[in-house]
């Protein structure tokens, strides 16, 4: 991977360069959270943050968008137009989440709406330091080596700029005087010491690799699941903030002024009451426990079985935002606690 140095005094110029290339988005502080917003005023940008409310998914599967338009002449797909959206400030977990969404939407069957939005997106990652809710060392997503166009590691006086794609390289090439490809030995030393310090600041670890078997074996231990089911508000916040939750609903809206219809896709959540209802009102998951089971078996068991990693990137959003404390941390811990036997288990 090609790596460059960008001096901090040149950073504003780098941001202006990005603004020339496309619509710039980045982390901005709102009342009580951070979110990726369109940046017109560069002074609003802040990189001293842990997590945004929603990850990068809002750029590729927005909360609500049109997919089809019908009128008297027929139907037309509403594919987003070509444009360049540059998001700066994404953390490694956000980029890993995007890679998970890519696997789903750009697999054998390619979703045309996602594909176009993804092609339009340029990701400039940014290094971060964890808080107590971050679990990315447990999910193996604390470091990232692809899935971004550029990645900035912020050090004392400069950024280490990692190039992850030709799109990223073109940005560098278009303003070469800002970047220096001569990385000195002491720069490397500064980076490794920063990385070491970062690794040591993680406070929470959960051995996720055992989760598939554990979830399988305790699947029918209803009491264990019910303690969460009883508390769950079915509000869907966990899915809204989870950067890998992608379930969607589709609804038609009749426009009042004409014989026109738009078909809209919107984010959905398997924890919401109607999620598994079929025609005739038969509900395959009528209670909250059953729906939470689906959520957590998907994240912690099935996805690991299929792809070798959890569908959790350890971003800590569910830990931060679930109003009743149901999250990957409390659920996994409850499972581990439940299997702490009174009888001493012989080590094999």
């Amino acid at each position, binding site marked *: 991977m090609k790596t460059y140095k960008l001096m901090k005094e040149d950073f504003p110029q780098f941001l202006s360069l990005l603004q020339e290339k496309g619509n710039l988005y980045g982390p901005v502080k709102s009342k009580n959270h951070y979110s990726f917003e369109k940046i017109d005023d560069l002074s609003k940008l802040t990189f001293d943050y842990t997590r945004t409310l929603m990850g990068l998914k809002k750029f590729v599967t927005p909360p609500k968008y049109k997919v089809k338009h019908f009128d008297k002449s027929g139907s037309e797909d509403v594919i987003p137009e070509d444009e360049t959206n540059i998001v700066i400030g994404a953390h490694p977990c956000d980029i890993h989440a995007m890679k998970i969404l890519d696997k789903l939407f750009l697999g054998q069957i390619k979703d045309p709406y996602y594909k176009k939005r993804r092609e339009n997106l340029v990701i400039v990652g940014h290094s971060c330091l964890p808080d107590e809710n971050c679990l990315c060392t447990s999910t193996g997503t604390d470091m990232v080596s692809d899935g971004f166009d550029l990645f900035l590691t912020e050090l004392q006086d400069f950024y280490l700029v990692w190039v992850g794609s030709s799109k990223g390289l073109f940005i560098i090439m278009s303003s070469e005087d800002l970047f220096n490809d001569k990385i000195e030995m002491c720069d490397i030393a500064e980076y490794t010491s920063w990385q070491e310090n970062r690794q040591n600041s993680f406070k929470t670890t959960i051995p996720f690799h055992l989760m598939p078997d554990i979830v399988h074996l305790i699947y029918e231990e209803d009491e264990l699941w019910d303690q969460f089911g009883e508390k769950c508000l079915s509000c869907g916040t966990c899915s809204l903030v989870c950067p890998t939750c992608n379930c969607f609903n589709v609804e038609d809206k009749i426009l009042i002024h004409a014989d026109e219809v738009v078909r809209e896709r919107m984010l959905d959540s*398997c924890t919401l009451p109607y999620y*598994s209802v079929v*025609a005739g009102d038969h509900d395959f998951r009528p209670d909250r426990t059953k729906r939470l089971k689906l959520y957590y078996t998907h994240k912690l068991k099935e996805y690991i079985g299929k792809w070798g990693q959890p569908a959790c990137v350890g971003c800590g959003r569910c830990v931060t935002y679930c109003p009743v404390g149901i999250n990957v941390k409390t659920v996994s811990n409850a499972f581990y606690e439940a299997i702490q036997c009174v009888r001493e288990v012989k080590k094999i």
Partner: protein
Amino acid sequence: MISDRTKLENPYEDHLATIIDYRDLTSDTRYYKLKFVEPEVQEHTGDYKPGQFAMFSIPGVGEAPFSISSTPTRPAFLEFGIRKVGSFTDALFKKKEGDTVYIRGPYGNGFDMKSMEGKDIVIVSGGLGAVPLRSVLLYLEDKRELYNNVFFLNGARTPEDMLFKEDFLAMHAREIIETHLTVDKDPTGEWKHNVGVVTTLFEKINGRVDKDNAYALICGPPVMYKFVIKELLKMEFSKKNILMTLERRMKCGQGHCGHCAIHGVYTCLDGPVFNYWDYERMVELI
């Protein structure tokens, strides 16, 4: 129908189809026969497998999945049996001959009819379950020489409730497939076939199925599966040869929207046909 959706620029591509015939099967279920409007799409009408489904779309109402009830061996049209149970079917039932709907598909794994060649086949349906299995039945009638013994056991609540009753009575008379029909109750007293739940029909085929070379295809209300599977296991059917086709909520049909997920599988991609091993692995399947 475009069976390989991966080749499409937009896998959500749908096509206008005209209702060329319809009739009531029961008080709440209707038969529809459709033909695609564009000739180049109509040419590929038979490009599907029995057990697959299609997504219907009515602008302003939405989309919903329906099992295909016709057979690809008769590729001039598509047939469906549709029960009026919700807002989509309310809108569909207002449509008459000559009206159109959008259709995309086919979706789902369907039944692997090739792998069943040379084997005995037992088809068991109850109620609305006759809809997807009718596709298999017609297919088997058309390719009867490729299969060994074929039995069809079908149950309904009353004779009035039996879907495709005329079709199945004719099938019984044709004797290409050994057909046994039953109703739970016969208020009319005019029913000439069996009375009793569908499992009472098993005595008619007992000892006549080569258990080591046989497939069972089941579709019906959730309560039916348990009892039918019990009978099949009694006959020592191999668990992987007990195939059932299931229903789930679906928004996309291609593994993206998440609604039809059961454990690690998507009913729309990995199903809707599952076998009994799948059921044992995934307790929520039925």
